[in-house]
């Protein structure tokens, strides 16, 4: 939903970042307003996932230049956990398994960490159970998953649904979905996309990182960006994704060489 009067949520300017000393992001610019849905597409190695990790504050990535403002505030002043509590959410491409920690205990800890930050009351296990069961319906997750260890023994699709469940519970302002569609069959994709669509709205921006236009049939973006070699080369509306589908990424990267 494009509303040029909506507040700017995320402002990325000339962002540079390295991992193990190797430059990956090389001058990335992006503006995201509240309520918008963005898709960032691009070939392998273009830096899409790095961008998501840098925004979330992964310790392995070093920011070497540029700035990122989140609600007008320098995002890099915040540690990763503080960014999360401020409303930045990353749905992981490969969610880690945490044996021995139940999903419900984990979710409640996360929920309460944010509640404390916002000066709201923490929920006790019973109150939280009501909330989480309600939210679990959104991604058609069986409540038995709540008693299992976080992602432990989950299938690929179950892990992705669990990510969206966390998003539903934490109600972030900015949700970054890192290849949430990878490894999903059609049914799982429909469920995950349904969950995301239900959560999309005026108060929340979504940035989807994906290789494939397929996801965009389910979650329709307002803006599509093509990324290569650590920066955004081309931006457009949904038709850009369709054009990419038919012409391939070389069309964009080649266009860049010609320019």
């Amino acid at each position, binding site marked *: 939903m494009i509303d040029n009067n909506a507040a700017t949520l995320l402002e990325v300017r000339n962002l540079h970042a390295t991992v193990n000393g190797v430059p990956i992001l090389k001058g990335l610019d992006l503006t995201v307003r509240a309520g918008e849905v963005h898709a960032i597409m691009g070939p392998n190695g273009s830096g899409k996932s790095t961008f998501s990790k840098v925004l*979330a504050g992964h310790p392995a990535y070093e920011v070497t230049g540029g700035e990122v403002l989140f609600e007008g505030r320098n995002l890099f002043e915040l540690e*990763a*956990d503080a960014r999360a509590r401020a409303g930045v959410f*990353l749905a992981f491409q490969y969610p880690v398994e945490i044996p*021995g920690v139940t999903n419900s205990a984990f979710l409640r800890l*996360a929920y309460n*960490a944010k509640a404390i930050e916002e000066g709201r009351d923490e929920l006790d296990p019973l109150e939280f159970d009501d909330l989480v069961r309600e939210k679990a319906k959104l991604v058609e997750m069986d409540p038995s998953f709540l008693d299992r260890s976080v992602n432990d023994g989950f299938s690929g699709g179950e892990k992705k649904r669990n990510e969206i469940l966390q998003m539903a519970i934490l109600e972030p302002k900015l949700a970054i979905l890192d290849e949430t569609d990878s490894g999903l069959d059609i049914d799982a994709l429909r469920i995950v996309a349904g969950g995301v669509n239900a959560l999309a709205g005026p108060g929340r921006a979504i940035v989807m990182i994906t290789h494939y236009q397929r996801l965009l049939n389910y979650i329709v973006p307002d803006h599509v960006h093509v990324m290569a070699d650590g920066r955004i080369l081309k931006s457009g509306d949904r038709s850009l994704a369709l054009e990419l589908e038919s012409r391939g990424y070389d069309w964009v990267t080649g266009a860049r060489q010609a320019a």
Partner: protein
Amino acid sequence: MSAVLQQLVSQPYKHGFVTDIESETAPRGLSEDVIRMISAKKGEPDWLLQFRLDAYRHWLTMVEPTWQNVSHPPIDYQDIIYYSAPKPKKKLASMDEVDPELLRTFEKLGVPMNERAALAGVAVDVIFDSVSVATTYKAKLAEVGIIFCSISEAVHDHPELIRKYMGSVVPTSDNFYAALNSAVFTDGSFVFIPKGVKCPMDLSTYFRINTQDSGQFERTLIVAEEGASVSYLEGCTAPKFDTNQLHAAVVELVALDDADIKYSTVQNWYAGDENGVGGIYNFVTKRGLCQGRNSKISWTQVETGSAITWKYPSCVLLGEGSSGEFYSVALTNHMQQADTGTKMIHVGKNTRSKIVSKGISAGRSSNSYRGLVKIGASADGARNYSQCDSMLIGDRCSANTFPYLTVQNPASIVEHEATTSKIGEEQLFYFAQRGVDAEQAISMIINGFCRDVFIHLPMEFAVEATKLLGLKLEGSVG
């Protein structure tokens, strides 16, 4: 992140303070004279002096074990003070008579024992520098025939029981440290649960080393007669010193027919500083004898302290259908070394044992599980299940598993499972991305890892243990 994790584990020891109580101490070193002095000071009968001297003479012929996966400078046994006691006072009838200084010490440790005793329904037999100074609930327990007192008192009041059982599970010649303990033990606890009595409350002893350089040589003896049951809690903490302190305790448990003994420990002796200076050497011999049919002994331990831990709470499963359990969490950080585990000796028919060991290593520590499961030729239908899990925090620590299986009976089943995992940066980042800081994340992962053991701790201890692990790991992950 690494720096954050490093900071997290580097919190100084909270309980480092010295209580100023005038001590009466023996000269440094060990000789027959020192042993005679200890025995005389305690007004012991001649048979007990002989018990000590026999142990001492045997000890002189023994050498320290070297098979454990730990290293330390040689211990000078002639540089240790073997006896140290607060000045003898008249017998204390109530808590009001206890030295206020001592009570303040317990306050600092977070063990307000009178309150704790009253509120939690726990009778506390307090060991303070080797001499029991207060025993609560004794009268109440006596009504049902339970004896809960110091070993010294028991020697005087119940000599026949001490003579019969002391040394019956861990003989004076059992091993180097047990022999040393048998020669010089100063005090400890004695519990006797008569036939058919279920002890109505958890029994608890808090140990604390106070005088610098004084070795601690406690002895605990618990006897549960036919059909009796008891749950015993042992907790430790010690003040901060730079010189190493030797702690060589002996614990013996005896369970007769259908008796049930549950022994739980939270051990938090001073572990030394980040560079391994100071800390307690904790060389302990704990063994239970399931003597009767269908008897049961269960050890649960949470080992978080000491510079070096050398400890193998064991069960000798003699009675037909008897069972032994060992649930352990051993956490090492900084330069700590732990070599701990259990021995399950199956002798009787249809005996069962279960071992669940969780080792957590952080800093530059070394953490080894060492366990023996022995199925004797006569142990038809014996079963053992062992599970040994290790968790590594950071990349400078080590974890080892040394399982020994000796099976002499084909009609038995022995199972062993082991896993190793690591608290990784990716896990912590996952927590962080959900708004949870590293400290809480580690605490939650560790508690999840230890859950199979914690569920066997009494409620009070479980809460304490959870906090303790969090505290011990503050500043340590990386």
